[in-house]
């Protein structure tokens, strides 16, 4: 299921403003790729351009190529809706649908697309997804309760369950733990390690220990100054980035010497 994504010469714009410039990177399947860098350097923007969520913002556009298993995701005949069905996303703030129960939240991807499912099949998807997100034991007795009644960490795992319930090939995570306590963070990191057998995972994080703990490869984004586009400075195996990076800027950032 997991797919390889190759990005070449990607420029990302907000209207006339060039936010990210010249990204070339290959994201390997069945692995976790972490993106680190200072705030405003374009990590999240880059992440959102991978499943065409970037263009939801008025005036936002992209130039360059994002190729998944030989298919250009920005090709003229590709519908962004279909891209997003293959590439799921988890956001910084947990955002379960407030009108739906836990059960319906997990099935949202199917239900909202009016996919017909037998009750047994739906139950199966819910249980599998919630188990996959390490949430089943906590909520199995209250699946009909509103998702917004869960704690922040549980809500975030519910959002992960919702994302993996539609069986995407790739899972994008935009700072999924930044609003969570260390215990919930640990739960989600364990979960990512389990999920990487099935999915390609790309995670944006400000927490460098987290990047070092969970990821196989790490990309470091930086920008030269305010108002200038962000660039991918270095992309290497995580071990190398954190021990012996090629670029001085990476070393400065990781060791806290920047600005």
């Amino acid at each position, binding site marked *: 299921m997991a797919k390889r994504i190759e990005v070449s010469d990607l420029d990302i714009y907000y209207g006339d403003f060039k936010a990210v410039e010249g990204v070339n990177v290959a994201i390997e399947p069945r692995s976790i790729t972490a993106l680190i860098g200072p705030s405003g350097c374009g990590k999240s923007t880059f992440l959102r351009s991978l499943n065409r969520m970037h263009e*939801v913002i008025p005036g936002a556009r992209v130039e360059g190529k994002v190729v998944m298993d030989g298919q250009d995701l920005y090709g003229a005949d590709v519908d962004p809706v279909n891209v997003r069905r293959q590439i799921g996303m988890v956001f910084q703030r947990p955002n*379960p649908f407030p009108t739906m129960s836990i059960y319906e939240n997990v099935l949202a991807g199917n239900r909202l697309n009016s996919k017909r499912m037998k009750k047994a099949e739906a139950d199966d998807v819910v249980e599998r997804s919630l188990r996959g997100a390490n949430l089943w034991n906590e909520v199995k007795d209250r699946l009909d309760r509103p998702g917004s009644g869960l704690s922040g960490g549980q809500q975030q795992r519910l959002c992960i369950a919702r994302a993996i319930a539609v069986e995407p090939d790739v899972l994008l995570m935009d700072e999924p733990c930044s609003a969570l306590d260390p215990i919930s963070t640990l739960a989600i990191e364990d979960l990512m390690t389990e999920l990487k057998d099935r999915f390609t995972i790309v995670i944006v994080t400000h927490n460098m220990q987290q990047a070092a703990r969970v990821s196989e490869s790490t990309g470091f984004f930086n920008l030269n100054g305010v108002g200038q586009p962000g660039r991918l400075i270095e992309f290497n195996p995580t071990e190398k980035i954190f021990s012996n990076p090629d670029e001085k800027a990476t070393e400065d950032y990781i060791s806290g010497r920047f600005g």
Partner: protein
Amino acid sequence: MSTDTRPAAPAPVQPRGPVRVERRLPRLAPLGLYLAGVALGAGLSALTGSSLSSTVVYGVVLGTLAVFLASRLVEGRRKATDRLVTCLVTTAFGVAMVPLVSLVWTVLDNGLARFDATFFSNSMFRVVGEGGGAYHAILGTLVITALATVISVPIGLMTAIYLVEYATGRLKRAITFFVDVMTGIPSIVAGLFAFALFTLLFGNDVRLGVMGAVALSVLMIPVVVRSCEEVLKLVPNELREASFALGVPKWRTIVKVVLPTAIAGLGTGVTLAVARVVGETAPLLVTVGLITGTNLDPFDGRMATLPVFAYYQLTQPGTDTQAFLDRAWTAALVLIILVMALNVVARLISRFLAPKTGH
């Protein structure tokens, strides 16, 4: 803690801790002082030739002064300003309540005389004196308002969805501007618009219930658009993004995520828009007219409505003038009750349809 409970505390008060402690007036003292001021004002007004208005004005001014000065002497400047502003705000509230209370009181006082079963079960068919009722007008108002709602809500809601979810740039600004302009259209103009439209379509002397519904829609649509727009804007963008990220198309996201999340606010907005037009008189006067019997078909001839009924009872009383006036007052009372009921419904809608938070 306050030190003013100690006997014979030396002035100024010595703070015992790091926080400054100030003398306070006893809890009920400001109210007592205010009432004393009011009493003094009443006395003063009695001396200068008593009237209700002068008593109230003197009383309020002197009461406020008494509280302010006492507080200034005992509690200091900041607390005194606080008390002064409290007095002013409370006075403003009182002034704002006067017309409302007076209106409700007058309508109740005059309207209860004919607030009986006959009023709700009889029409004015072949009634020239006492008796008769507004059965036909109440039902007519309900039919025409319902029809106006059926016309306005789809147009208004879809306009709001377009403005919030799709429109950008100049077109959006233009629509918003014209909706604002529509909000300010005088109701008689809306009535004349419907009158002219139907005269063009069906010739002279046409009077239909649906004409009234169209006229009311012109007044109702901008209210629906504005209230729905505000409510839809409140739906967090994160929910839309969550839905998009699951591969849900935009229109499904709107229908299945945005609208259900906002349903309580939408229901409230629509109900308040209905309450806004249910009492309109002028547009119905020129489009729907009035009849004495019961006509519930909005596509066939004149209909009776409560506001127009009240208007004609008042302006064209027959020989038994008092009977006509009583019916006018009761019609007004029924209208007020209708509007109040709609407001209660709006509150219930927002309470019961709001997204549950669990626990």
